[in-house]
């Protein structure tokens, strides 16, 4: 049996970088998808509203683990052999997009209707309304919950370990397999997740308080 030592700690910390990389891929991919979904959810076209609602319902009703298995094992059967990071990035993007889409829909709808009416009156078209009037205000409302949701994104990247992507949790498993000290290893892993997530949680709360006062 190998003693748990500094080499293991360094290995785990290096793997934490991949957790952060995967989180960023998932967040920015999910943000693009989420914005499109949010706009589709408040669209004037019934078909767009229905399709985006169906997508969100489906993804929110499916465990992320199953999405991961579908894109990693399932797609390879169909002939698309994805690398673990691509499969993980893809399924996290689909997942995060559905949640951000629903959060941001709420934020767009929370902008007072009078803002729509006023921008109609001064003759802005739909694009200008969104770009200059609605979205800037919605972003302000959306910032605290979005930062809060980033905590979920970071935590959910831990599931990428099950398809063999060596991020924080997988590194913990590998080290545990050679040292047999699960308590030490996984407490360290948990502590690193905490160190990433807790500042985000606090930031979300602070932002919420700050923006509430301003309103």
């Amino acid at each position, binding site marked *: 049996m190998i003693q748990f030592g500094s080499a293991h700690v360094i290995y785990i910390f290096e793997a934490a970088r991949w957790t952060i990389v995967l989180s960023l891929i998932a967040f920015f991919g999910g943000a693009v998808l989420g914005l499109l979904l949010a706009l589709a959810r408040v669209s004037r076209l019934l078909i767009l509203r229905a399709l985006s609602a169906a997508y969100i*319902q*489906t993804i*929110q*009703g*499916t*465990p*992320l*683990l*199953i*999405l991961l*298995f*579908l894109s990693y*094992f*399932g*797609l*390879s*059967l*169909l*002939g698309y052999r994805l690398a673990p990071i691509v499969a993980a990035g893809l399924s996290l993007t689909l997942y995060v997009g559905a949640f951000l889409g629903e959060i941001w829909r709420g934020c767009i709808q929370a902008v007072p209707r009078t803002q729509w009416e006023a921008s109609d009156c001064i003759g802005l078209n739909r694009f200008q309304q969104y770009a200059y009037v609605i979205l800037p205000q919605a972003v302000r409302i959306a910032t605290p919950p979005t930062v809060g949701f980033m*905590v979920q994104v970071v*935590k*959910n990247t*831990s*599931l990428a*370990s*099950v398809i063999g992507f060596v991020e924080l*949790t997988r590194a*913990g*498993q590998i080290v*545990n397999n050679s040292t*047999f*000290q*699960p*308590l030490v290893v*996984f*407490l360290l*892993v*948990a502590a690193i*997740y*905490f160190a990433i*997530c*807790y500042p985000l*949680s606090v930031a979300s709360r602070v932002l919420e308080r700050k923006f509430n006062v301003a309103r």
Partner: protein
Amino acid sequence: MNYSFSFAFLANRWPALVEGVWLTIQLTVVSITLGFLVGTLCAVLRVYGNGFVRRVVGSYVEIIRNTPLLVQMFIVYFGIASMGVKLSAEVSAIIALVINAGAYTTEIMRAGIESISKTQLEAAECLGLSRVNTIIHVVLLPAMERVYPALSSQFVLLMLASSVTSQISAEELTAVANVMQSDTYRSFEVYLIVAAIYISLSFLYRFAFALVGAVLFTRRRKLGTAL
């Protein structure tokens, strides 16, 4: 892409899926119930406890909410086993899920308890209710009513998250799917079916929570009126 879908394996393998669904339901119903009780107790302590208790409960909530369920599950399953206590995968899964659900419930119920207006407490005091009776009869039920939508969607998310327990070899739905796909090489079909089952389960749970809510909160009040 020349892959032909085939669901023929279902013909003699569907009983395994039913068993998996049943274990998923058992695991999650037990964890949701216990997690709700733990969380409600912690929420009461968080609001009415002394400074020390408040800080302990606060740390519990923050630690659990800022670490992944998968890692919590490994700590419970492998960590406790390494200290010499052998727990089955299902029991470990329930312990981890209860700890996790308890933390989220604490935070949600705390919001509910804090939303109860002070005049309610004063009125209860005037009627001579003891502190415990006040909390049970005057605070908790209306508090729960106010946060019920948040609670039920958190519990549906917990049901979906219970798929993670397959990683410590609890034989629930996802684990059954993993075995089935390695037997049949039909991973795409297997996971599509399982995804559909989870979606149905999440609708079923939402419906069940709506029913429980209708029974529990009989005082139908229009939204936005004073409590």
